[in-house]
C-alpha cells in the first residue's frame, strides 16, 4: 500500500493554535494529556483534555480548540502514531507510525554531497527546527518499536545535535535499533565519531555509501571532490571507536562497471565493516532528473553483481542485495536478496499476482513504473 505521509489533509473546525505542534494519536479517553491527539472515527462525543482533535465523522456542535476534520488519505493514522500539525497550512505530517516496521526520521535536508541519483535531493536552508521537533516526538514513540532510521540530507552536518538525538533515542527507546544513513564525511576529523561511540547505544549502525575503489569515481557520483577521502576516514574513525558500519552501493549506469573492483577493494581494505548492501536504484529525485543517463536494466549488470557478491561473500563479509525483485536476479543471488523497501513506498506489479516467489520477494519501489526491467516475470515452480 502506498501511504501519503505529509499533506494538507486538515480542515480547521474552529479556533486553532498559532504554531505547529507535535502529539500522539489516541483513541482511548483514559490516555488524555497535553501531548495526546484524540482521533475519532465516528460518534459525536468529544472528550476533553486532549491537545487536539482529529475528527473523521460528523462535526460536533461545539468543537474544542484545535479540532480538525481529517482527510480520507490519512485514514491510516492510528493509536500510538506521532504526528506534526501545522495549523496555519492545515498540514499534517506522520513522523512515526507505530504499526510500521520502517520508521525513518528525516533530520535535515542539507547535504555536502550532491549525488547524481539522490532520491531525496538536498535543500540548502536552515532546518534546525526539525531536530527540536524530533526531540519532542521521540519520547512519544512506543518502546516496542523495532527499528528507527535516521536519514537526511546529511545527519552528520548536525554535529553535536545528532549526538543529542541518538542519546534521546537510546534513553527513550533503549530496545530500538537505530540505523543512521550518513555519507560519513562528518566523522572524518574531530570527535564526532568518538562522541557517538561514547553514547554506548545498544544497537546502532551507520549506513555509509561508497561507490568506488578510487576517489575520482566516487567523487563524481557524489559530485564532491575530496568526498572519498573524508568518507574513508569517517569509516575508519567510526570503526576505530567501535561503531558498527554498513557500506551501501547504489547500482546504476554510472557505477555498475566498478562493482567487481569495489568488492575487491572492500574485501582487502575494509574487511572490518559489518555489512555491505548492494542496492537497486530508486527512481526518485535526481534519479528521475538523470533517468536516461542512470537507468540500466538490472538484467544487464548481473555478471558484475554476481562477481561482487562472490568476492564479498568469500571474504566472509555479510552481503545483501536491496531493492531488487527476485525475478530479475539469477537464482544463485536469491539467498542474498532482502525485502528492503519501506512499506510506504513499496508496490507490486501485475506479474506479481500468482508468482511463486511473491512472499519472499521485496517487490518494487512505487516509482519503478518509470522504467521496467525486461526480466520482470511471474515465477512458477516445478
Amino acid at each position, binding site marked *: 500500500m502506498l501511504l501519503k505521509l505529509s499533506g494538507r489533509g486538515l480542515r480547521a473546525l474552529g479556533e486553532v493554535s498559532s504554531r505547529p505542534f507535535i502529539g500522539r494519536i489516541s483513541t482511548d479517553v483514559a490516555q488524555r494529556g497535553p501531548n495526546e491527539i484524540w482521533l475519532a472515527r465516528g460518534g459525536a462525543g468529544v472528550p476533553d483534555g486532549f491537545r487536539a482533535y482529529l475528527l473523521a465523522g460528523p462535526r460536533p456542535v461545539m468543537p474544542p480548540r484545535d479540532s480538525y476534520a481529517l482527510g480520507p488519505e490519512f485514514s491510516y493514522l492510528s493509536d500510538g502514531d506521532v504526528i506534526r500539525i501545522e495549523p496555519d497550512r492545515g498540514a499534517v505530517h506522520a513522523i512515526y507510525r507505530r504499526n510500521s516496521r520502517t520508521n525513518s526520521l528525516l533530520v535535515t535536508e542539507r547535504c555536502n554531497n550532491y549525488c547524481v541519483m539522490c532520491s531525496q535531493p538536498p535543500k540548502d536552508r536552515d532546518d534546525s527546527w526539525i531536530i527540536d521537533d524530533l526531540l519532542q516526538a521521540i519520547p512519544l514513540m512506543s518502546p516496542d518499536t523495532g527499528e528507527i532510521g535516521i536519514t537526511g540530507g546529511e545527519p552528520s552536518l548536525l554535529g553535536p545535535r545528532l549526538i543529542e538525538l541518538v542519546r534521546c533515542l537510546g534513553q527513550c527507546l533503549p530496545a530500538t535499533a537505530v540505523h543512521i544513513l550518513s555519507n560519513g564525511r562528518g566523522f572524518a576529523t574531530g570527535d564526532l565519531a568518538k562522541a557517538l561511540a561514547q553514547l554506548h547505544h545498544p544497537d546502532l549502525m551507520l549506513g555509509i555509501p561508497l561507490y568506488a*575503489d578510487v576517489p575520482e569515481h566516487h567523487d*563524481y557520483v557524489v559530485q564532491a571532490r575530496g568526498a572519498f577521502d573524508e568518507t574513508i576516514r569517517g569509516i575508519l574513525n567510526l570503526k576505530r571507536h567501535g561503531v558498527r558500519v554498513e557500506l551501501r552501493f547504489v547500482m546504476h549506469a554510472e557505477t555498475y562497471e566498478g562493482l567487481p573492483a569495489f568488492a575487491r577493494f572492500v574485501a582487502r581494505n575494509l574487511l572490518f565493516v559489518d555489512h555491505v548492501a548492494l542496492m537497486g536504484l530508486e527512481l526518485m529525485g535526481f534519479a528521475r532528473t538523470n533517468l536516461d543517463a542512470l537507468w540500466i536494466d538490472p538484467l544487464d549488470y548481473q555478471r558484475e553483481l554476481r562477481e561482487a557478491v562472490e568476492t564479498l561473500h568469500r571474504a566472509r563479509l555479510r552481503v545483501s542485495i536491496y531493492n531488487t525483485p527476485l525475478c530479475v536476479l539469477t537464482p544463485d543471488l536469491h539467498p542474498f536478496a532482502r525485502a528492503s523497501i519501506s512499506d510506504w513506498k513499496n508496490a507490486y506489479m501485475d506479474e506479481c499476482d500468482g508468482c511463486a516467489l511473491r512472499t519472499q520477494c521485496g517487490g518494487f519501489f512505487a516509482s519503478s513504473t518509470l522504467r521496467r526491467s525486461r526480466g520482470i516475470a511471474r515465477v512458477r515452480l516445478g
Partner: protein
Amino acid sequence: MTGLHARFRDRTAFAPRADYRLLPFRFIRLDDQRYVVTSDVGEHVVVSRDQLIAFARHELPVTGALYRELKAKHLVFDDDSRAALDLLAVKYRTRVAPVANLTGLHIFVVTLRCDHSCHYCQVSRQTEDKTRFDMARDHADKALALVFESPNPAIKIEFQGGEPLLNFGLVKHVVQEAERRNAVQRRDLQFVIASNLTHLDDEILNFAREHDIYFSTSLDGPEDLHNANRPLRGGNSYRAAVDGIARARAALGHEFVSALMTTTPASLPRVEDIIDEYVRLGFTSIFLRSLSPYGFAIRTRLIRGYDIADWLGFYQRGLAHILAVNRRGVQLREELTAIALQKMFAPLGSSYVDLQSPAGIAIGALVYNYNGKIYGSDEGRMLAEMGDDSFCLGSLDDRTFASVMTDDALQQILEDSLPESAPMCADCGFLPWCGADPTFHRATQNDIVGHKAFSAFCAKQMAVLRHLVTLLEDDPDARRVLMSWV
C-alpha cells in the same frame, strides 16, 4: 551515453591531476614479457616492461585503466587523495598484528618411539621398547604451564612423536590438565594428534570424541607407494592408515581427520595416483610436501634422490591435476598453493608458521621435546637429533614463557629472519608473499640467513609463486578454482 542534467558536472571535473607519487613497491620478472609489482602489504599488479618503466618514471596517463588499478591497490597516489596512506597503514597493521599474539601452536613430543621405520623419518625415531625416549609427566606439566603463559587467545596443542599413541597415557593427562586450566583461562583450545593410526583403539577414539581431538595422519599415496615409503615391521602401514582414517571419521566426524604426504623419489612419477588416492578417500585437502633436509632423509641420502627441479615438475603436474579434479566438481585444495594465495589475497595473510616474517620460530610455535628440552620449531628438534642444538631454547626445568621469549639467542634468530632486511630478499618482488626458514638454511648452508642464490628454499618459492601468478593471469578457469581456496 546520455549525459547528466546540466546542473551536474561530468567525470572530467573529478579526474586526478596529471602528476602522481609512488608508494613503496617491489618488482620481479614474471617471464620474458611481464613483471609482477607488489606493495608492502602483498597486493600486486602484473605489467609489461614498458608499463613498469612508464609507471616508475611517473609517465602513466592518470585516466587509464592501469593507473586506476595501481591507485586502487595503493601503489601510487596523487594530489586528490591521501586516503591511500591511511588504508595502507591499516592494512600493514592488520597483517603484522598477529605477531603480538605470540605462540599459538604448542607441540608436545610425548615419545620418540615409533613402530614404523620410514626412510625419510625426519625426527630419527627410536624403536618401540626404549621408554627412556618418553616424555616425563613432570615435564609435561611444566610445558603446560608455559603453554598458558602465552598470551595467544587461540591455543593449539599438537601431539607429535615418534608415534604419540605409544604414550597415550601422557596424551590423556595433558588433554585433561589443559582443559582443567582452560576452565579458567577460556582460550580457544584445540588438540591434534599426529599419528600413523596403527595403535588406534576404542579407548582412544572414545577419549578423542569426548575432547574434540583432531587426527593428522600420514598418507603417501596408493598402497604400494605408501608401504614402500613407510615400512611397518610385521604389518601393512597403508591398511592401518586407511582403516584408522575410516574408524576415526566414523567415531569423530569426517572433518576430524586430515592427512599429509611426503614426496620421495618413488613418488615423483606418480603425483596423479597420489592425488586420486586422496580423492578416493574423501579428503578435501592435500599438501604436496617436498622432503626436508633433516633426520633419516639425510642419513639415508634419500634427499639426494631428486632436486628442486624434479620436485617442481611434480608440483606443477600435481596442481594441474588438482585443478582438473576441481573442474569435475570435486573439491580438493592444495595447501602449499593455498598458503601462497592467502598471502597474496587475504588481508591477514597466512598463519602458516613455517613461512613468516619474522620467522615463526618460538613466536609461532614451541616444541617441548621428550627429554624436556624446548625448541622453537619442529625442524629445530629434528636438527638437534642430528647433533646441531642451535635452535634449543633451554630446558623445561628452568624456563618460563617470558624467559624463552626474551632469550638473546632467539632474539638474534628472529632479527636475522626478517626477509625485509636479508640480502636479496629485501629487494625481491615476492617478499610480501614469502617468509624466512632459518632452520632450513642452518641445515643446508650452516647459516640461518643463507645465500639465496644457492638456496633450494628460495628456488622453490620463486618457482611456485611464478607458476601461480602465471596461472592467475593466463588461465581464467584455474583462477576461478584458485580464488575459491583463499
